[in-house]
């Protein structure tokens, strides 16, 4: 559905996208994971034909977003990261407006948005600007779906949305995927990555890896420990000073410690920490999650540069 090869997009000073290549298959739920400022929105804008790029090759359903932008705009549903509907129009007015622009009717594709729409229907006469964050997202999704797009581009749809609404939102995406819509979604939340079929990790305009969440985790080949002690701050600085340690990041109340040597054990870590006078030390060997993998790939990239 989407084919991006060696894409480069520069703004005056910064290179927002640096040699990006990725592929999204038909009917896939594809996640673009990366911190703020990584280039997620820029990539979305290029794919949705809103932004011209400098180098590389981009194809959306076999169409070029530069020359064939009209065909692409007819076919995609794009939901920008910032709420972009008319705040002074009500839910119903916004929907009618977008259906009119796409020369369709609300009734025609109602089955597609029904599940979502029924949740916001009780407020259908309320201005969009007065809706809660979760309802705004649902409305925006409805508006992106009214013309039955083949490809749905969602730029950080869950940012600023409460935990319950986030889970609901991903449930909705799964149902849409079952209806054959290809979905590309970006998020800064690593925990949402495992909900996608395949993910691309992006950092500073570069793709660090494209794989299934499991596949990404498999690239993490080093021993990983969750470490806890009384003095959290000196714990993390001591671990970072240790030359056996590859990296140490805080992760909730734990420090996730990655070791250089494949044969490192929890015992080793404990004895090091005792030598540094830490009390109530707990060290557990754990398996990596997407965030650990992200940090690891980022570190590897920095080292190789």
């Amino acid at each position, binding site marked *: 559905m989407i084919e991006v090869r060696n894409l480069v997009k520069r703004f005056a000073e910064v290179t927002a996208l640096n040699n990006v290549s990725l592929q999204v298959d038909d009917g896939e739920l594809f996640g673009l994971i990366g911190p703020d400022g990584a280039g997620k929105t820029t990539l979305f804008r290029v794919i949705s034909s*809103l932004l011209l790029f400098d180098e590389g090759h981009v194809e959306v359903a076999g169409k070029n977003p530069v020359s064939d932008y009209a065909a692409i*705009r007819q076919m995609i549903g794009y939901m920008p990261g910032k709420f972009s509907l008319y705040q002074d129009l009500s839910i119903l007015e916004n929907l009618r407006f977008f259906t009119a622009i796409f020369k369709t009717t609300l009734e025609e594709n109602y089955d597609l948005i029904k599940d979502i729409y029924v949740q916001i229907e009780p407020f259908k006469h309320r201005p969009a600007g007065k809706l809660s964050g979760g309802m705004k997202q649902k409305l925006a999704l409805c508006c992106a779906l009214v013309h039955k797009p083949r490809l749905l581009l969602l730029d950080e749809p869950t940012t600023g949305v409460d935990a319950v609404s986030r889970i609901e939102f991903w449930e909705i995406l799964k149902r849409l995927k079952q209806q054959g819509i290809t979905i590309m979604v970006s998020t800064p939340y690593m925990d949402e990555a495992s909900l996608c079929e395949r993910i691309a990790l992006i950092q500073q305009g570069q793709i660090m890896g494209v794989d299934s969440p499991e596949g990404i985790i498999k690239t993490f080949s080093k021993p990983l420990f969750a470490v806890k002690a009384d003095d959290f701050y000196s714990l993390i600085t001591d671990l970072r000073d240790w030359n056996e340690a590859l990296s140490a990041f805080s992760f909730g109340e734990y420090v996730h410690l990655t070791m250089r040597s494949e044969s490192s054990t929890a015992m080793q870590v404990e004895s090091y920490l005792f030598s540094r006078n830490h009390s109530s030390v707990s060290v557990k060997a754990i398996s990596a999650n997407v965030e650990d993998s992200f940090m690891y790939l980022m570190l590897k990239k920095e080292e190789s540069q």
Partner: protein
Amino acid sequence: MLQLLVLSYTATFEIKKTRIAIVDFDKSSSSRELVSLFEGSRFFTIPYYPSQMSEAEQLIDTRKVHQVLVIPEGFCRDMQVNHEVSLQLVTDAVDGSAGALRSAYAQGIIQDYSQEINTTISGRRVSGPIVATWSFWYNPELDYTTFMVPGILVLLVTIIGMFLAGMNVVKEKEMGTIEQINVTPINKIQFITGKLVPFWIIGHLELTLGLVLAWVVFDIPVLGSVGLIYLVASVYLVLVLGLGLIISTLSDTQQQSMFISWFFLVLFILMSGLFTPVEGMPAWAQTLNTVNPISYFIEVIRLVMLKGSGFVDIKSQLVSLSGYAVLVITIAVWRYRKTV
């Protein structure tokens, strides 16, 4: 800075070139002497010497001249037989302040001539001073409000139109809604039309309200055709809204748009001839005024409202405005980018 430089020159109340038509029924040496005084003055040019009153009236009606001086038959003879002689001076006073100035200039020349006669024909006492009976046409009381109301009406329509349009697209940019619109298959012309039509209607409503107020409160009815005003206004509004939309598509924030809009508005307004007569401005400023939409519409609305001019009289302004409007809208559509 630019405004200070340009506007200081244009904000002058002095009238340099008054076009006067002289109807000489006397054709005597005395009348010719008076005419030559007008010819010699740096304030006057005499493009026409009509032979009949009706011809002169037509000249002033069509704005070809600002003034008509009528020298009656027997002017020379009456003067010599000590009769009081009278001249008739008609001044177009649609622009009250300019009209008063022109009338004063002309009377000054006549006064000079009168005194000259008294001194040169010594021995024979010429008691009869030359009395110029003057009249102001179209705005008999030189009423400032009569003159200003149509102009201010134009101003309000312009400001509202330019700001509404100027703020609109840029607001969508700030809100981010433009991004959502841009990914839809809507095309540029549809978008610009959609932006234009509501404000165009608002502009007409405002004009209507203004015309009613002018009539009810200031007692200034439209002498000419109301339809003609609306015809010109409809073209004019497209032009002004188009300018606003261009500014809007070029700006990134509402402040930017506001600043640029004000820059042009202040320039346009002060050069438009609303407060000071355009004829008094230096030549380069008058040339600059050919791209000033406000000056066209102010001229038209004053002509139609106060003077009752018809279609033929304002045809050239209408043609200019139409061409201008087409150009501006084309640029607006072209400049609007469906990318971010």
